[in-house]
């Protein structure tokens, strides 16, 4: 095992970052082990589940399949960079409040993929949302509440009112 460390510079959540790490590490490992950002999760390490998704130059990628070295000079966004200070991203609000996050373990990955989708398509229909999210696995929700949260956040971002899903308003006076 080589002791030589790699050293890269890149943009992480809007700020310039420098980090040294063992060169065989994936971006997922670098983020967690060398930069202390624990929001990006291990799910399968084989690119099967989407749990470790981050945005690189605005595109969703699986950080378990990308070498840390390849982040040199790129613009990387992890879940920690999604909110604007204490102001949550509209998707984070709807995920938290309308049942899209249950155990929460897959949520960072889904949130970033959804952010990418809404940037490209501010008014996606249900089928488009399904397709965009189909690389991410969730075992808790059956996905329905995730679609609803994306639809609701999209409406809010467009400045439109949207009726909350039936279940979400159930029981309110």
């Amino acid at each position, binding site marked *: *095992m080589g002791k030589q460390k790699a050293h890269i510079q890149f943009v992480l959540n809007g700020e310039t970052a420098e980090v040294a790490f063992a060169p*065989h590490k994936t971006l997922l490992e670098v983020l*967690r082990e060398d930069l202390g*950002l*624990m*929001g*990006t*999760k*291990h*799910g*399968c*390490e*084989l690119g*099967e*589940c989407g*749990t470790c998704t981050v945005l690189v130059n605005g595109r969703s990628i699986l950080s378990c399949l990308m070498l840390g070295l390849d982040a040199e000079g790129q613009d990387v966004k*992890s*879940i*920690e960079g*999604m*909110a604007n200070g204490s102001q*949550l991203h509209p998707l*984070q*609000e709807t*995920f*938290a*409040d*309308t*049942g899209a*996050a*249950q*155990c*929460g*373990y*897959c*949520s*960072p990955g889904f*949130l970033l993929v959804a952010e990418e989708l809404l940037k490209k398509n501010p008014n996606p229909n249900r089928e488009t949302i*399904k*397709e965009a999210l*189909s*690389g*991410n*696995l*969730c*075992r*808790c*929700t*059956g*996905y*329905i*509440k*995730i*679609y609803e949260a994306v639809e609701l956040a999209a409406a809010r971002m467009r400045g439109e009112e949207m009726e909350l899903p039936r*279940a*979400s*308003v*159930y*029981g*309110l006076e």
Partner: protein
Amino acid sequence: MSASPNHPIGKSVPRKEGRKKVTGQALYVDDISFAEMIYGVTVRSSVPRGRITNISFAGDTPWDEFTIVTAKDIRDIGGENYVALILNDQPYLADEVVNHAEEAIVLLAHPNKYLLEEARRNVRIEYEELPAILTLEDSVDKKEIIWGEDNVFKTFLVDKGNVDEAWTNADLIVEGEYFTGAQEQLYIENNGVIAIANEHDGVTVWGSMQCPYYVHKALIKLFALPEDKVRVIQTETGGGFGGKEEYPSIIAGHAALLSLKCGKPVKIIYDRAEDMVATTKRHPSRTRHKTAVTKDGKLVAMDIEFVIDGGAYCTLSPVVLSRGTIHAAGPYFSPNVRIRSSAVATNIPPHGAFRGFGAPQGIFALERHLDKVAKAVGLTPDEFRRRNFIQQGETTATSQIIREKVDMAGLLDRAFELTGYHEKRQRFAKENEQSRVKKGIGFATFMHGAGFTGSGEVYLASVVGAEATSEGRVKILAASTEIGQGTNTIFAQIASEALGVDSDLIEVAQPDTANVPNSGPTVASRTCMVVGKLVESAVLALKQTLVGSGLLREDYSQSEFQEACRTHIEKFGPLKTFSTYQAPPNIHWNDEKYQGDAYGAYAWAVYVAEVSVDSLTYEAQVEDFVALQEVGRVINPVLATGQIEGGVAQGIGFTLFENVVWQNGRMANNQMTNYIMPTPADIPPIRVYFEENPYAYGPGGAKGIGELPMDGPAPAILNAIENATGVSFDHVPLMPEAIMENLTNVLHGITL
């Protein structure tokens, strides 16, 4: 009642820890580190059954840098080498013999994860192989005795009326045999634990788990320590579904053994492949039905034989078998019922808890079988069931009198209305003649008991505490875990409703055996109904204490309540109240005869599935799904709906996708690319509806719902597939290969 008009029950109060989870701030076990912490791995058996003849440490691994633990180390510390649960037959580390593939034999720890992985491959274990039993059938047939005297962990007999005499009164007898496969829980967060152990302080573990006190009990035995020297703390848990009920006791013991030996904190996190290959799955099952009916479609007798494959050790199989047995006869009245059930041993990794806990297996068989019986007697599936639904005042298979109002026929009417069932039944029949894609609609009607079976809750004697804080808040003390299902949120709602204060004022303590009482395991759809009721009574006792001490009027405002908490603590010190489970009146259970009130309350449900089957590709797809259930009072509609949607999705996976491939007793497809759980593209619209019939002994009228949605999808979907294709399938998972084999004959007139 208080002056504050605060009634959060029935409202979709946002998830309490939701913000932490969507910002990446929630800390799961792998996100936590300690100074000096090193990593642990498990070396496992490569054969299903054998005698260990030699263990050697080979290769160029610098073995002197490694901490190595074997069964001998457990003897050296004077501990018990078994996972304390029911029969205590499962060792922490195999000693001399292995009884299943992937059984833990050697533990290794090292600061470098990569060296550790290389070292794991350099441990050579030699075996003298012994004949193994790899299927339920071979175990039942006793091809080899591999456990006890007869391969049987547990049997039950439920006997109502006299089945043997009933056959003569029948116009028709219908038999059937049904099978269900193993299923992996597949929580997205793999299992993991961190342990710190030393001779002075004892053992402390942090981990992803459902039942901190199960782990506590197991570690006390493993390390021969007094209760107060073992501390178990649940970290944020990324899903459980039963898969983190009993298994974390093993990982916790392994990590703690390594930590004790090396004197440093040790973290063991399974990767996906290890989690899938080595940890528990849903019990495979075989159910045989023999049913007697009159010609007008009344049930006369149900004779049911239910067998589950427990794997190599007993673990929780007797309890899984119990729930499966009791649910095997469904929400119907039959004067004569006999259920003979058994859990048998095989040389595969032990099967364990998984949402539904035996009930989905038996309900699948029954609901498929009743469609067959209906056909034989010349009735539609719905008309046949209508003639047999259990009514208030009638008795279940265990002779439990249903005292609550129950209206299965009404639920069925509403479910058919919501789906256009009758219209679709007719339309599909016509359209299918012309089209390649055959459509069908089918349903299942079922009930699911909440809480531990029979006397289980009485034995558990769960305790919940409520503590006033000096900030005038109330902290709930319970070992019940938040694993995604909403424990924190509903406990806060229940306490808030009872006290008449904002739910923001209620905190829910992190489950930590040093700080919270044992409120029982987080299983069996019991957290809301049973533990929630204890939350209600604990906070009411706290209020009563404040009123009794003269610090609070009966009619108070929120700020008066907070002030009273502060003053009480200043004057008298810490204020904690506790509530212990007491069975509702009229609950009687006979454990020997397996008769009586099996559960305090049942949820009742009708699930309807619409499917399409492509007669060219043999692909079956669920197109629409309606889940209608009566669950007492719904505490939080968004959370409750989420439970149902998620459970139905797992049920669809169980039915059409999730196929564990066994090779020599080992799961061969232990990856998410070849063991397929439903993706966003596979899930149809799931439409969830509740009816509410408040249960007198649940908090705010609630019953349990967590397991219920796992019961209905498999039979509803296969009933729909029969409607679409005319072919009756008797097993899940139903893969396209099986559809092809059966459909080619029917659709293309080919005889093989």
